[in-house]
C-alpha cells in the first residue's frame, strides 16, 4: 500500500521499520502508529547482508513514499540482525515472529516457523514470546530437506506441495538424514513407487520432525504456521495431520518476522515517548548512495 507523506510535523505521522535478515531472504516492513503495513518488500539475502539490506530498505521506502529520516525507530531481526548499521536495536526473530503473528491472529498461542535453514516453535501469550524451541543443527527438520529431495527427484521446489497432495499411498521415509533420504528416494523410485506417494512421504517425514520439536512446548490453539515452507500446501496438510489440529497460515508467511519487528519498534518508541525517556537511535544513513539523499 502506498502512502505519500509530506515533511512530518512533530507528533503527526510517525513511522517505524522492521527488517528481517534471514539466511535466504531479507524482508522489510514499514508501519505507522496504527500498525498498518505501508510497504513490505522481500529480496534475496545473498552473501553480503549489509549491501542487500540497504537495497531492500530503499525499495520499501520508495514503495511507501518515505525517506529513511522519516523512520522513528528501526528494529533488525533474523540471523543477520547484527549487520544492519542503521538499525536502532536488534530483537530475535522469535520475539518478532511472535508479535507479527499475533497482529494477524489475535488468538495465537503456538507458532511454528519452518524456514529454509531452520525451524522454530514459539509459545505466545498476547503477542509476547513466553517459550520457544529451535532446530538449526539438522537439515532434515528444515525446508532444506524438501529442497534437496526435490532436486534429486527433478521436481521444482514450488511444485512439491501440489504433487504431494495427489498421493494415494502412505510411504514412510526411514532415513533420518537428508543425504541418505536422497538415496532412499531414488531406491523407492526404482522400486516402482509413484512420485506423488514418495513426495507425500517426504512431507510427512519433515512434518514429523517439526511436530516432534513443537511438542516440546505444549501445542495449544490457535496454532499458526509461518516461514517459507508454510506456502507449501502439502506441508500444511502434513503438519495438520501430525499435530492433530487446525493450522492458520498467513497470506504472507515470510513477512511475519519483519512485521513483528516493525510493530515492536513502534511499541518501544511509543512507550519511551510516553514515559519521557530518551531513546538512542543510529544515524539515518545507508552505506551506498540512495534515491533520496
Amino acid at each position, binding site marked *: 500500500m502506498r502512502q505519500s507523506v509530506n515533511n512530518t510535523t512533530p507528533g503527526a505521522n510517525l513511522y517505524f521499520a522492521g527488517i528481517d535478515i534471514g539466511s535466504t531472504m531479507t524482508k522489510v516492513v514499514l508501519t505507522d502508529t496504527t500498525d498498518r503495513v505501508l510497504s513490505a518488500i522481500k529480496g534475496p539475502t545473498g552473501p553480503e547482508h549489509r549491501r542487500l539490506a540497504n537495497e531492500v530498505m530503499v525499495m520499501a521506502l520508495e514503495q511507501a513514499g518515505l525517506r529513511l529520516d522519516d523512520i522513528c525507530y528501526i528494529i533488525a531481526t533474523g*540471523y543477520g540482525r547484527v549487520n544492519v548499521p542503521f538499525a536502532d536495536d*536488534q*530483537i*530475535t*526473530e*522469535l*520475539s518478532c515472529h511472535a508479535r507479527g503473528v499475533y497482529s494477524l491472529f489475535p488468538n495465537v498461542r503456538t507458532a511454528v516457523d519452518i524456514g529454509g535453514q531452520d525451524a522454530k516453535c514459539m509459545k505466545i501469550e498476547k503477542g*509476547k*514470546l*513466553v*517459550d*520457544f524451541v*529451535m532446530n*538449526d*543443527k539438522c537439515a532434515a527438520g528444515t525446508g532444506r530437506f524438501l529442497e534437496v529431495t526435490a532436486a534429486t527427484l527433478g521436481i521444482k521446489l514450488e511444485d512439491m506441495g501440489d504433487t504431494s497432495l495427489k498421493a494415494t499411498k502412505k510411504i514412510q521415509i526411514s532415513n533420518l538424514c537428508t543425504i541418505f533420504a536422497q538415496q532412499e528416494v531414488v531406491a523407492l523410485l526404482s522400486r516402482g513407487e509413484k512420485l506423488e506417494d514418495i513426495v507425500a512421504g517426504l512431507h510427512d517425514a519433515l512434518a514429523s520432525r517439526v511436530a516432534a520439536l513443537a511438542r516440546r512446548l505444549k501445542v495449544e490453539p490457535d496454532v499458526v504456521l509461518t516461514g517459507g515452507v508454510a506456502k507449501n500446501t502439502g506441508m500444511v496438510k502434513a503438519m495438520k495431520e501430525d499435530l492433530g489440529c487446525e493450522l492458520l497460515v498467513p497470506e504472507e508467511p515470510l513477512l511475519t518476522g519483519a512485521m513483528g519487528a516493525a510493530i515492536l519498534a513502534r511499541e518501544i518508541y511509543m512507550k519511551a515517548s510516553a514515559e519521557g525517556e530518551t531513546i538512542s537511535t543510529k544515524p539515518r544513513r545507508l552505506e551506498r548512495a540512495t534515491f533520496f539523499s
Partner: protein
Amino acid sequence: MSDKGMSKAQDIYLNRSQRAKELKAAGKKIIGYPCVYVPVEMLTALDLVPYRTYGDIKEPVTETDRALPTSFCSIMRTCLDCALKGKDDFLDGMVTAHSCDPQEKTSRVWESYAAYPYFQYIDMPTTVRPEAIEYFKSQLNDFRKTLEAFTGKKLIADKLKSAIEAHNQQRTLVQQLYQLTKPAPPLISGTELVQVVKALMSLPVAEGNELLSQVIDEVKSRTDGPKKKAARLLIWSSTLGDTGIMQLFESKANVVMDETCGGIRAYRGSVKPTADPLDGLADYYLKEITCARTFRQADLGEIRKDYAKDIKSRFGYLKGIVKEWKINGAVLLLVRYCDPFAFEMPSLKDYLDSIGIPSTYIEYDYNLGALAPLKTRAEAFIETIS
C-alpha cells in the same frame, strides 16, 4: 583506586600459560587437570603448580578425531586436541578424575597419546555413601603415593593442612567476590568473573589469593561497572571458560551467578579440618562440588521416595541464591553429549518452576561455530523474561 588487579586478571586470561612457564623456567613443576574434582591441595602441598586445562573454544578441533568420535563431549575433545597439538607441552603431568564417562574414556587415550612424565587417573564413586567416601579417600591416598614417587618428596600432613588452608582462603575470597554481583547493577560482570576465575586457575594459590584481594578491593569501589539490565541471570552449566560465551548473555542481561566449572562451582564451602587431611578432602570434593555427576538423595538409602523432597534436597541451595541475588531467570546451558547434566536438567527445571523462576535449556557445542545459534537462543530467552 587503580584497576591493576582486574587488568592483571584480564591479561592473565588472555595469556594464561605465561606465569606457569616462568615458574617452570625457575624450576617448578606444573601439573595440569581438566576438572575441578581433582584435589589441587595435594599438588600445592608438594610445591607443584596446579594448572587447569580448559581446551580452547577458538581452536578448531583437528587432531582428536583419530582418538575420539565426533559425537562426544566437545570439552574433552578440545582438551585432547590441545594436548595433541603440543599446546600444553610445558606441563609436567596431568591428573584426571572419573567425574564422568567422557573424562574417563579420554583419560586413557590422553595418557597414551600425550606422554607426560606424570599421569594419574583418580577413580570416583557416584554416591556420597560412607563406603564411597572411604573408597574415594583410598584413591586420594594412591594419588599421594604416585605424587611422592614423582617428586621424590613425602607429602606430610602439616604441609597438606597448610595447602588446604590456602585453598580454603581462596574459596572464601571468591565467595566474597561473588557477593559483589548482588547489587543492581552488579559491580562485576559475568564476563569479568570468567576472566578472574580463569586467572586464578592459572596461578599458584598464594599468587591467586593476592590477585583476588586486589580485585575485590577495586571492584568494591569501582564506578565503571556493568550497566543495569532488566534480566538478572543464573547460568547453570559445566565448563565455561571463555568470555565469548558469557558475552552472548551480557549484551541484554546481567549474569549475576554462574554455577559452572569456570565459575563458583570450585569455590563453594570449605574443606573441613580433619586429623587426617585426606578425610577432609575426600568429604569436601565428593559432597560439595555441585556437579550433576554425583548421585544425591534426600536421605541416604531411603526406602521411600518423594519427588518434591528429592529435588528440594538436590537443588534447594539455589533458592537462597535466587532470592539474595534477585535472579529472575536461569539458563540451563548444556554442552551437547553431556549425559549427567542432560538427565539432571529436567528435574532442575521442575525445581526452578516450583520456586517460580523461569528457565530455559539451551544445548550447544563447545566451539566457536556454536556461538551464533547460542546467541539467538540466549537473547530470545532474555526477551521472554524482560
